[in-house]
């Protein structure tokens, strides 16, 4: 088979020739939620510190799998990884950035942030218990607005995703019935509604059907110009989904008390906090095979902490509080060790 052996020889030659060219590239895989901001950071980091980031959003589960298999340099996951699994896979988990999930609706004549919703009502809608927009519970909350009798058409994520994990975590926190019947996960058994693929799919579906309601990452609500709603937070006030509200939630998180940084930013305290905020995490091997690549990963995130705040804000994400960033740095120093036991991060 002459052709294929030539191809094989060609392949091997290319591999050996090109191996040196990839010295400063780091590969990451996982959550799609933060993929846009990682991409922006990556592009800026190339010019600033010469590190090339190849990040592919294959899903949080994929990210966890790949880093456990050590096929990539770091994994990214929206849902914090289970402590036992982190131990077994010898992984360090730290947060990179935060984002928010917002409900979006499609009702004729209703503008953004006009309608008020609560977590319980959202849960009831997705449970199939509230089926019309002029249901008494909604009318009571929104006196002054004439709600039509249109049927509510809930839209959920057809594909497994961190966004669903965040949203169902919120529903579980505010509705005991949801917690018991459905629970929180990257994919759940939705009792009613229809699925759409990706945040963009949900956005498009909601836009398509009158009476539609869905949940998307904040960046998509803005770019697709969807109608957002107010949501009641733990303190009882109704907040609009603004960057200020997201940051308020982030700053109220119990970072110190969370093991492996797995803090919950769902339904946090604070009068101005948005109730559906989440951190997204990076997974790094504690015993990396290639110390240089691991050092580059940490160098990249160190740079991103210091310089990525504005970019994050522009892309509608929330940067970590400075104290958390410092805590992450000390974790790198303490946990990531090379073969001799010396810490890689200086």
């Amino acid at each position, binding site marked *: 088979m002459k052709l294929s052996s030539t191809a094989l020889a060609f392949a091997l030659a290319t591999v050996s020739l090109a191996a040196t060219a990839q010295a400063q590239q780091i590969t990451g895989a996982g959550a799609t939620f933060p993929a846009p901001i990682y991409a922006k950071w990556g592009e800026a980091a190339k010019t600033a510190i010469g590190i090339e980031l190849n990040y592919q959003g294959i*899903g949080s589960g*994929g990210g966890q799998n790949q880093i456990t298999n050590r096929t990539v340099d770091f994994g990214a996951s929206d849902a914090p990884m289970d402590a036992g699994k982190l131990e077994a896979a010898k992984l360090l988990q730290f947060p990179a950035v935060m984002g928010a999930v917002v409900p979006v609706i499609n009702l004729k004549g209703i503008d953004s942030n006009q309608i008020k919703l609560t977590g319980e009502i959202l849960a009831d809608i997705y449970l199939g218990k509230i089926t019309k927009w002029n249901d008494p519970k909604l009318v009571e909350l929104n006196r002054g607005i004439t709600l039509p009798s249109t049927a509510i058409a809930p839209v959920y994520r057809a*594909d497994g995703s961190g966004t669903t994990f965040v949203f169902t975590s919120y529903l579980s926190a505010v509705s005991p019935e949801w917690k018991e019947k459905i*629970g929180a996960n990257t*994919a759940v058994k939705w009792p009613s509604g229809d699925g*759409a693929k990706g945040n963009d799919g949900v956005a498009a*579906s909601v836009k*398509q*059907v009158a009476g539609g309601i869905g949940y998307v990452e904040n960046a998509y609500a803005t770019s697709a110009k969807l109608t957002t709603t107010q949501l009641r937070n733990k303190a009882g006030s109704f907040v609009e989904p603004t960057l200020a509200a997201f940051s308020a939630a982030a700053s109220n998180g119990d970072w110190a008390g969370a093991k492996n940084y797995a803090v919950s930013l769902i339904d946090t305290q604070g009068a101005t906090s948005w109730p559906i905020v989440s951190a997204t995490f990076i997974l790094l091997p504690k015993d990396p095979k290639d110390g240089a690549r691991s050092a580059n990963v940490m160098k990249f995130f160190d740079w991103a902490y210091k310089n990525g705040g504005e970019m994050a804000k522009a892309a509608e994400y929330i940067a970590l509080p400075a104290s958390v960033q410092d805590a992450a740095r000390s974790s790198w120093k303490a946990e990531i060790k090379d073969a001799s036991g010396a810490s890689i991060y200086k």
Partner: protein
Amino acid sequence: MPHSAVAAPTRRRSSAFSGDAIFAFLAKAAGVLVLVLLGAIIVSLFIGALPAFRAFGIEFLWNVDWDPNQAIFGAAVPIYGTILTSMIAILIAVPIAFGIAFYLTELAPNWFRRPIGTAVELLAAVPSIIYGMWGLLVIAPFLASSIQPGVIDALDGIPVLELLFHGPARGKGVFTAALILAVMIIPFIAATMRDVFMTVPPVYKESAYGVGCTTWEVMRSIVIPYTRVSVVGGIMLALGRALGETMAVTFVIGNANRISPNLFGSGATIASLVALNFGEAQQGSLLLSSLLAIGFILFVISFIVLAISRTLLKPKAAK
């Protein structure tokens, strides 16, 4: 006469390293390689699926539950969706493909046949991800605004039909997915039909024309019965293609977790379920195992469909 009847000349009592022996060995080895390849794929799939089969047993096949949180999975919904979308796709594609094949073989002027034939076959060349995106962007909104509301209103109140076509006019769903699949397989069926229609000996058609049959009557009474078996075989092959199609379906089918008769509602096929959930499935989890299990079941379904088409095509090959 099978070409292997042309044997190697026997006067060459050469060593085992003669050109013939080597070449014959390579050819056979390649054949065995293909067998081994499929075997390896199925075995690796089965090994990955074993935890799911062990956990759920044979009930996995008809369990309608798909609950990732409780880790209870059942294959009934994706199997139903796969078979349903493929069947509807065949129902839509076969008449259209037949019309095209009939037109190309009997009705079109000669100079017109090649360009039209090429154009129809170009449909087969469009990558499936493009079908998915086109379906989502063009077909779904078109159905939602122009076709679905009319159908829903017209069938409202008619007992069985209103169950099949109701609900908000979403544009996406089982019917849309089936329609896109149909467009994808039309060229395969049309090409098979056309090739096979052209093998009908002209003398049969000419005698029919001679007694005054119209073109349609010739087609109906001569060509179709003559080619029926091969045509059905070709349809089965197209069905096999439709069963495994991922990208074209994933964008529009929605992902339901219950069996509902509503064709305008969401559904799930095996391929789409695997594509949508694989990214989030963790290694060693029952979810991953269940996804591999339904993948394995898809192979089994393909096997059955292809085996049926084989038995249908056999009598023709013996001619």
